[in-house]
């Protein structure tokens, strides 16, 4: 497997400078016509739809929205195209860095069977992702259970805020991985230690954002609560919670981002099944395509988690 992948990268690395410059030029050229062609295609499209409108006497809303969609899609597609172009360019210049084509081929093979289990140390990519997600979910869930109520208490009571301020400002800047040895020592196992690292790195944004939200509740609303003589429970459920929710969701988003960042590093150190350890394993096998695939997977999963939480936040927003 390992030798195969090296062989497949060798021809590209063996190319002489002249050829790689040529292919670089061609790849740059290849992106240009796309950019140039799209507006042209657009105008053609407009002309076509205008003709259609003339003949059918009804300007189609569908056509219009499709045109807007394509116009909207051009910049991000150009960005991705640029990324792949730069990648191709660098891979041609460098020894051993696989290009997009060989990486894509490796990805097709990898994802054709994502859920195989050969032995506990050799499982499909799907299992690795799911295991990492499970660790993140556990660590993040516990951090939310502790962090959000703590944030409420800190934001609500000046005394608690001042009491916890030195602890938070001291511990928050600590690199998450510095907590790993403590976790290993206390839990005497790798998996809880990894979850512990997720917990400790994910808890801070939730505490801080929730507390900031609570402390920013407008005095007007609190005056309403005072004049109505609302019970503490009603104050929390009818005023604090709805007001703080957007702040809290920001904290949750930041937390899950951090958790997903940290899991790769933590798993590299603890081992076991997971995307982080998989990256390390593939590095030991010198399977660079798989490392690049892992980078893309981590990015995509992180993006999906973020989008998922944004959707939840939108649902609960009162505005």
């Amino acid at each position, binding site marked *: 497997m390992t030798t195969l992948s090296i062989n497949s990268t060798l021809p590209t690395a063996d190319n002489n400078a002249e050829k790689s410059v040529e292919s670089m030029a061609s790849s740059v050229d290849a992106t240009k016509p796309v950019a140039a062609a799209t507006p042209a295609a657009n105008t053609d499209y407009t002309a076509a739809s205008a003709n259609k409108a003339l003949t059918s006497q009804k300007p189609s809303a569908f056509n219009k929205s499709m045109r807007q969609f394509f116009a909207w899609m051009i910049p991000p597609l150009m960005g991705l195209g640029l990324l792949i172009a730069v990648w191709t360019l660098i891979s041609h210049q460098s020894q051993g860095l696989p290009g997009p084509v060989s990486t894509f081929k490796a990805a097709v093979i990898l994802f054709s069977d994502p859920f195989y289990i050969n032995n506990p140390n050799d499982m499909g990519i799907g299992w690795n992702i799911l295991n990492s997600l499970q660790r993140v979910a556990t660590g993040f869930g516990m951090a939310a259970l502790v962090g959000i109520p703590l944030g409420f208490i800190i934001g609500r009571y000046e005394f608690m805020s001042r009491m916890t301020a030195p602890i938070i400002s001291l511990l928050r800047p600590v690199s998450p991985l510095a907590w790993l040895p403590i976790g290993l020592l206390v839990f005497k196992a790798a998996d809880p230690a990894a979850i512990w690292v997720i917990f400790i790195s994910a808890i801070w944004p939730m505490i801080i954002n929730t507390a900031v939200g609570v402390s920013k509740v407008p005095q007007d609303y609190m*005056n*309403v609560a*005072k*004049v*109505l*003589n609302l019970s503490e429970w009603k104050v929390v459920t*009818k*005023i604090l919670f*709805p007001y703080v929710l957007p702040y809290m969701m920001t904290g949750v988003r930041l937390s899950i981002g951090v958790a997903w960042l940290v899991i790769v590093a933590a798993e590299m150190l603890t081992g076991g099944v997971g995307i982080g350890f998989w990256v390390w394993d593939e590095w030991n096998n010198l399977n660079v395509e798989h490392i690049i695939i892992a980078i893309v997977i981590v990015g995509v999963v992180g993006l999906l988690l973020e989008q998922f939480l944004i959707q939840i936040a939108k649902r609960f927003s*009162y505005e």
Partner: protein
Amino acid sequence: MEKAHTAKVLDERYVMLENINMTFVTNKGTFEALKDVNLNIKEGEFVSIIGHSGCGKSTVLNMIAGLLTPTSGNLFCAGREIAKPGPERAVVFQNHSLLPWLTCFENVYLAVDRVFGSKEDKAQLNARTKAALELVGLSHATDKRPNEISGGMKQRVGIARALAMEPKVLLLDEPFGALDALTRAGLQDELMNIMAKSGCTAIMVTHDVDEAVLLSDKIVMMTNGPAATIGEVLPVDLARPRKRLELAEDTHYNHLRSEVLTFLYARHAKKVA
């Protein structure tokens, strides 16, 4: 005989402020906001507190509401000392202070539930809430959120919320200050009708002379700060119901109006900053 006397005194001094002093401690040192404020308000009276901005009129209102405690002096409402906020002294806030995540109905219901929730069942509470919104003419907007209705409508909901609590004293903190002149006039007329029906005591902070004369039985005029106090109390003995258009030509109305204007702009003129 004794009892009747006490009742009469209580009636005369339904809300009573005794030797109120208020000093705020700020970063730059202490600031004496109010000095020696004494005021008696009769039951069922509509009293306006007027003065230039920064004279501490809102401070007085917040003290009666119980949101602020005076540095020294005593406040009483219906014979009891005012120690903290309570639903018998409902407040209509200047910026309406509706909770944006609740509908108009829910905003009013929150107050109704707090005051009557222990005594009445859900249907009665719903009926009270609906009646309050109907009183201010908002039956059609009960399920709207505050950001879906106009400024004037928001302020009506604020008034409905306060009235639904059936307060002994209604406190209004520049209730129409943020509204345009036409909306304001409409709401003033409505407030007059509502107050005539409910007959509850009301204290309103305002900086609008016409509003004060039109609505009040008594206008409390405050001197400028620091160490502001009550400069003069002007009784407004215009017959009710009052009509805005008729009063515009009324000599007595114009006389009262000029009294207030003289106080504000001749005797206690504020230097323009």
